[in-house]
Every structure is written in C-alpha cells, then in structure tokens.
C-alpha cells in the first residue's frame, strides 16, 4: 500500500496499562490533533493522527507535552519520536506482539521518572587557543610544519586532559549519589565543551532528594556548572 505525503498516519506517543488514567478529553497532540487511547489486552497506546512531515521543534514539543501529561499520572513507556503506524490494526498488533515485554518493563519502571544532569567546567582556563592554526608562536628558525605539529600535539594532550577530567566528574557524581542506588545511563556529550551527562531513574518520592543532592554538590563544587532537567518519561531506560 502506497502512502502519499499529506495522508494521515498514526503517531505513537507511549504505552501504559489499560487501567491507567487516559488522556484528558481535550488533550492535543502533534499539530493539535486529539490524542486517544487504543486498547489491546492489558495495555493502552496513546496515539493521534498526524500528517507525515519533518520533526520541527514545535512538533517535538507537542509530542513531549503529551508525554508529560501521561507521566504526571503514571510512568509510561515512551516511544522514540517519528514512528508512525498505518492504522488501529497495526497498533493493536504491536501491543499484542510485545505485551509481555511492555508489561514487564512497566512493572520494572514502577513510579520512577527520568532525571538528567549535565556537568561542565565553569570558568574554563582559556590560556591557549584550542586550534593549532591559531597558535601565533613561531619560534625563530622553526619550520611552520614543526610548529604546527608541536601545537597539534599540545592540543591533543589538552583534549586528553579534558577527557580524563570528564571521567573524574562522572566518578564524583556517581559517588555523590551512590547511596540513592539509582539506575544510571550516560547521556551523549553536548558539543565541544567538556561535559558529562547522566540520566537517572528516580522514584517520584525521591526527586526532591535528588535535586537537593545535586544542589549540595553544586555548592561544594563552584568550579563546575550543573544543569538538571526533568522529570522526563524514562526515554533512556526502555
């Protein structure tokens, strides 16, 4: 069956148990389409009709708003953005086929939510240019190639120091939170800065404790910048 551009397909948000509260009647999903539930066995999928199109930031936000609406009441299994099915039958088939898998994941997740923390060094010591071509120094009599290689070696050494600093940050963060025994996933670095990111799975009742602990670490380490985001649906743990 061929689908053309502009023809509606079903956009998947998340899966929960069929007895969990459904979306509010006026909940709008992507492009303002109403969000509805589709049931199969013990599960319910949250879906809306969508016209095929690129993932604009607006659409990602709309997707996330639906996810947070679900997350507020019960932790869902979030789908990755951009997966569309052609009709109710396909969604039902998906739920039936993966029921055991989804059910045990929901059980394991329980009431937990995902929190994210990113750490970067605060005021970087910008004593040297990062890129060898910026290196102004030309020692008398040194060939440009030699100067370049020397600078390149210095840059690589600097990158190595940065990597090991990042690993240290990660260790101290994990150590700091060790007693909370949170499942953790390292999140992708962000950009050229030295940065470490971790996603944690935190019980709702412990989110405040988690935030307090990061705040304490922040006061203890004024040399670092901390960014905490969440609560998220458990994207990194499913």
């Amino acid at each position, binding site marked *: 069956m061929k689908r053309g551009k502009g023809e509606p397909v079903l956009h998947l948000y998340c899966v929960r148990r069929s007895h969990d509260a459904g979306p509010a009647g006026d909940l709008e999903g992507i492009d303002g389409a109403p969000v509805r539930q589709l049931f199969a066995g013990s599960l319910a999928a949250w879906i809306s009709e969508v016209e095929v199109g690129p*993932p604009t930031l607006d659409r990602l936000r709309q997707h996330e708003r639906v996810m947070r609406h679900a997350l507020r009441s019960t932790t869902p299994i979030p789908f*990755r953005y951009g997966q*569309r*099915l052609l009709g109710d039958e396909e969604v039902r088939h998906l739920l039936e086929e993966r029921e055991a898998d989804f059910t045990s994941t929901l059980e394991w997740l*329980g009431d937990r939510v995902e929190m994210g923390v990113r750490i970067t060094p605060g005021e970087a010591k910008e004593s040297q*240019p990062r890129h060898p071509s910026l290196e102004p120094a030309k020692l008398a009599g040194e060939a440009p190639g030699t100067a370049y290689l020397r600078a390149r070696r210095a840059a690589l050494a600097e990158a190595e120091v940065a990597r090991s600093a990042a690993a240290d940050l990660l260790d101290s963060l994990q150590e700091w939170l060790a007693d909370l025994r949170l499942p953790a996933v390292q*999140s992708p670095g962000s950009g050229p800065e030295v940065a470490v990111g971790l996603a944690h799975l935190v019980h709702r009742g412990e989110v405040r404790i988690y935030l307090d602990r990061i705040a304490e670490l922040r006061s203890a380490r004024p040399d670092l910048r901390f*960014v905490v985001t969440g609560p998220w649906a458990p994207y990194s743990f499913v």
Partner: protein
Amino acid sequence: MTDAGAANGGWSAELAPDDEIWSDGLDDEHTLVDLVNRLLDKGVVIAGEVTISVAGIDLVYLGLNALLTSISTAREHLGRQVGGEARQG
C-alpha cells in the same frame, strides 16, 4: 519513600500531579537540547516489527539533519556565551 515503586503508583505527597516541578519548561535551551537527545535517540523503537510509513521515516531523517544542525549551532552559541571560543570555520 524507599519502596515507592508500587505497581499502582501510589503518589508521594512530595510530588503531586500539580506540583510545580511538572511545569512545561520546553522553551528553556538546556531542556530543548535534552528533549532532542531523548526524543530522537531514545525511547522504544518498533521498526522492523510492523509496517512503517516509509515516506514518513525518510522525511523524519531528512528533517532531523536540519534540526540537529540548528541545535548544534545553538550549542556553539551557548558555548561562546559562557566563555568558550568560536570554532574555526
């Protein structure tokens, strides 16, 4: 609250559904970076098990490049604001 993982999700008084912690925040730059990383790179993938609109997927990835480019530009901008250096072009 050490056993808060009950299957029926008993609510903690510390995090009610109307708690301010759920406030949107989806315009915040840091949250947006995390949002993109999560929505496009995490979460359950069903590809290969069901029929997916091929045209849709292609468009998603086409659009993705444009989006990620703009995010990385935003990051560079952020990096400069906090004292980082402009990257070499």
